[in-house]
């Protein structure tokens, strides 16, 4: 794979990833397209620009680590890792099928190039901070990136971990909140309001950066800024649109956990050309 900072190239990759997500969830007839589509630019920018990694050497000790704590968004991760060369592109549509490496939630047993098995919300930040603590103890400069769902941070463990990260000054960990404002039961603000979100993180001792999570240039700048932050971890609050890129899926709570029908797949792919 070739990494790039070129916005047009990253946008083109993002569109390809969106097509994969639609095709994968459409073929599976289940899964979580909305929260996969909202995180596309975040995950693409990380894997194709920011992360220090090598798909030829997935166990390279000094690689940066990526954890998708919101494991239900795995179609975006599978598609990006496949496009990077970690795993096959042509079997992406086996998502959720018996024996597939592309399990319903990320499963290291079936896809060993994953950094973590996730799926139970609220746990990935603790894991990331443990990894970050180990890197610091060894004096290594690899970094850890972890994507959290907005609904996910309603879990208490997130805030246990937030305290831990600040207390231990784990500045090699960057959390990205995919703030698409929708969770399974409806809009986040109706289920359990998170605001004022950036202030929450800052009061917990984190560096907080707010941005448009579909703006690749803003993401690149934020990841660069995070690298310069010393003595505290960084959270990027990425305002995103659930279902981004497909008109009838955007901001539609229905597509949190419902796959597109065959007709909807066709419609979506026409929009993603």
């Amino acid at each position: 794979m070739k990494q790039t900072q070129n916005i047009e190239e990253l946008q083109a990759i993002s569109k390809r990833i969106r097509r994969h997500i639609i095709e994968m969830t459409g073929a599976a007839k289940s899964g979580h397209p909305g929260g996969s589509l909202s995180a596309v630019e975040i995950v693409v920018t990380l894997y194709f620009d920011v992360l220090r990694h090598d798909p030829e050497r997935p166990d390279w000790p000094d690689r940066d680590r990526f954890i998708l704590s919101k494991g239900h968004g795995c179609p975006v991760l599978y598609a990006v890792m496949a496009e990077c060369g970690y795993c096959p592109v042509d079997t992406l549509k086996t998502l959720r099928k018996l024996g597939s490496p592309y399990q319903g939630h990320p499963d290291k047993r079936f896809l060993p190039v994953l950094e973590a098995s996730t799926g139970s919300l609220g746990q990935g930040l603790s894991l990331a901070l443990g990894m970050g603590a180990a890197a610091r103890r060894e004096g290594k400069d690899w970094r850890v990136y972890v994507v959290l769902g907005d609904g996910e941070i309603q879990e208490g463990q997130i805030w246990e971990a937030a305290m831990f990260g600040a207390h231990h000054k784990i500045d090699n960990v960057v959390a990205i909140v995919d703030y698409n404002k929708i969770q399974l039961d409806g809009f986040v603000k109706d289920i359990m309001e998170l605001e004022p979100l950036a202030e929450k993180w800052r009061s917990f001792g984190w560096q907080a950066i707010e941005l448009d999570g579909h703006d690749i240039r803003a993401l690149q700048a934020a990841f660069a800024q995070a690298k310069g932050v010393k003595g505290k971890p960084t959270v990027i609050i990425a305002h995103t649109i659930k279902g981004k890129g497909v008109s009838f899926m955007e901001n539609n709570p229905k597509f949190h956990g419902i796959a597109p029908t065959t007709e909807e797949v066709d419609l979506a792919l026409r929009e993603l050309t």
Partner: protein
Amino acid sequence: MAVKTKFELKLGMATREAFGKALVAVGRENRNVVAVDADLSKSTYLNLFAKEFPERFYSCGIAEANMVGVAAGLASAGKIPFAASFSCFVLNKGFEQLRVLAAYPNVNVKIAGTHSGISIGEDGPSQMSVEDISLACSLPGFTVLSPCDEVETAALVRLAAEHIGPVFLRLGRAKAPVVHAPDQEFEIGRSMELTEGSDVTLIATGLMVAEAIRAQEHLESEGISARVIDMHTIKPLDVGAIRRAAAETRAIVVAEEHLVDGGLGVRVAQAVAEISPCPLEFVGIQNTYAESGTPEQLLEKYGLTARDVIAAAYRVLRRKQ
């Protein structure tokens, strides 16, 4: 191993204290060993490790779920983390994290649960762990260790650090009688036959091992030959020793400081039922929670003394064919 005929059962360290000391020793030899704490280091004796290796000690505050998650992260990056808390807190508050972040991805974390059983005494049931064997054994891939004294604890801490995969160590608050000789060697998954015996087998774990020995000595004085097995590894279970005991003595008593439901006894019964059914008796905590009291009072009230083991042995012998 050499089978002893007499045991002094001199009071030694609590297994939690032996754990704390052993971890320091293991830490000196292996710099990858780190410790993770949830504000109980003075009780779990992780403070000994913290004092010697402050830079390898991670305080999480009172946050067991995060503690297990951080330990899993440290392990994923090559460390050998020992996370310790009261057994009831780490297993109950951290169970989901043990399931998803440790057992399911088979991560190399070591969980030390102290203050197991009811012998913690005065603090009462909210601090007592009477279901930890059941919970820990229900996690696929976990190794579950339950030492009976300071010698066994020190050895099992070392073996746990060397073992690749998740481990749960069940430890107690009360001082424990010393059963084993200082130079005794141990192996994960291999039980210790402490006395030979042909009439009945007493299988015990943790602090009930000493009670089983006392029971054996009494039974011997009444002409009954009891085999005592120290089952320090609950999982993987030493099925071979159990089946031999079933075949040779045709009567088994299992004794544990744990709920009878889901405990060692159930696992022994499964092993026996599969191949060589024989009468069994279960000495353990019945379908209830305990209360405040001295450890001695509680062990007596809830049926966890040598006398209870002896009574169970007579019951099982009456049913023996």
